[in-house]
């Protein structure tokens, strides 16, 4: 089953699709944040095996009606490292 993550950005345009990007995501089961490298896309048909990624503004509101998709390519560690 696909996992669910979220991330906080100032603007949706801060995210680039189809390009490996470093970002901080939260696992929505524990709400623990971590740094990863990942490929992101905005619709499921572009990454059918991807996990779900809700994109939130810095004040918490969801910026899209449907989640983006994410494929994590590398774990970079805790945000506290």
């Amino acid at each position, binding site marked *: 089953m696909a996992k669910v993550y979220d991330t906080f950005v100032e603007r949706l345009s801060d995210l680039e699709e189809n390009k490996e990007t470093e970002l901080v995501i939260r696992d929505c089961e524990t709400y623990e944040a971590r740094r990863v490298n990942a490929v992101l896309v905005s619709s499921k048909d572009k990454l059918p095996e991807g996990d779900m990624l809700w994109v939130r503004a810095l*004040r918490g509101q969801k910026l899209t009606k449907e989640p983006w998709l994410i494929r994590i390519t590398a774990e970079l560690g805790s945000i506290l490292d």
Partner: protein
Amino acid sequence: MAYRDLREFLNKLEEQQELVHVKQEVDWNLEAGAVIRRASETESPAPLFEKIKGYPKGFRLAGAIVATHRRLAIALGLPSSASFPDMMDAYDRGITNPMKPRIVRTGPCKENVIMGDDVNLYAFPAPMLHDGDGGRYISTWHFVATKDPDTGWQNCGMYRQMVHNRNHLGGLTMPSQHMGAILRKNEQCGKPTEFVTAIGTEPVTACVAASAVPYGVDELDVAGGIRGEPLEVVKCETVDLLVPATTEIVIEGHVVPHMRVDEGPFGEFTGYRASPRAPRWVYRVTCITYRNDPILTQSCMGVPPSETSSISALCKSWAVRKALRAEGLPITDVYVCGEAGCLLCIVSTKTPYPGIAHRIASVVWGTQGGSVSPKVMVVNDDIDIHNMNEVIHAFATKCHPVRGTHVVEHAAGFQLCPYQNLEERTWGKGSNALYDCTWPIDWPPEIAVPPTASFRNIYPEDIQQRVLSNWKNYGFKDK
């Protein structure tokens, strides 16, 4: 007699039909927060969640325990029907007669002691309170204590804490807040700041921590004064700080200097999430002690009512009233308006000379409590300022849009004011406004001041008495 611990207070709430035992399993992930929020907004009894999804039997969560004036009155040892001025008087009696805490060797908070690598903040059902919050907030109704490195004064304040991982918390502390000053003093010397978080104390301590006690005054002494008997406190295991012996959950550690990690956002007391996710202080946890079957207390801030409209409104009103009285101003009542997230201060006064509203507003903005109330409304002393119908009526009918509204630019700002633009929020720039809702005293009363057409004002006393005494005879149920 003062409550010995949180549990005695919850029993008292139950006796007064102010507590609901939620026996159905509730998810810490948004469900508990939604229940607390709705209970606050509907002024329903406080929920005590007894079965939290994924947590062992006995680990409980209590929300909104003083989110209403009734429950705040009970917390202060008054009848639930006590008026707001009565509560201010009780707070005043306590704060002017502080009592030092009594240090005892041990207490229930030491029933379980977890140290070092065994520390795990996820062992407690810290809720995800609002959808879109920055994380699970373990500390929203509690106090965090730190010590001033120069004087040794222990400050206790209510500073939110979000769980980062098993042994780290993050939190917002503004430079103008007492702990913010202490953290910066230590950080300038490259030193960590020892802290302790006490969650689930008897009710008065958390209320005092949420209030604006002056710098250098020990909140535990003030809590003793309000309780009418000293708190019993114990020493922490790993830091040189004191906590009430009956505290449900105690988290010890140090704030890491020169380290900031993204924290927030969080649904705030103004009713919005005005401050963004941003790099903020990090707390490293070294020890957790807790009572058997611990109760995690929570406030789910948001649109009033909440604890802000009860205790914050009370202590700010008290501070402003004290300052206005000290100036000899002929005020009759003060209410830092909980319904407005404390961003509005209403003062009723006699008007012996023109311009008194300006003097009142200047004093309000000069106090610590009033400095975060950028709007001040001054009304005549015949207005019951706790009756919002009367207040709104006075504002709409007596405040001239031009002559009654006075704007003060370039004031110190309050970063959580939702109406401020991003630059104002970032830099703490602000502006204030006075709404003078008093009749101008240079108006000839018989000609210019219209009589108020209310039951209390427009009927002779004997008619009022006759109507009141016959009210039930007319067929009405109550007065």
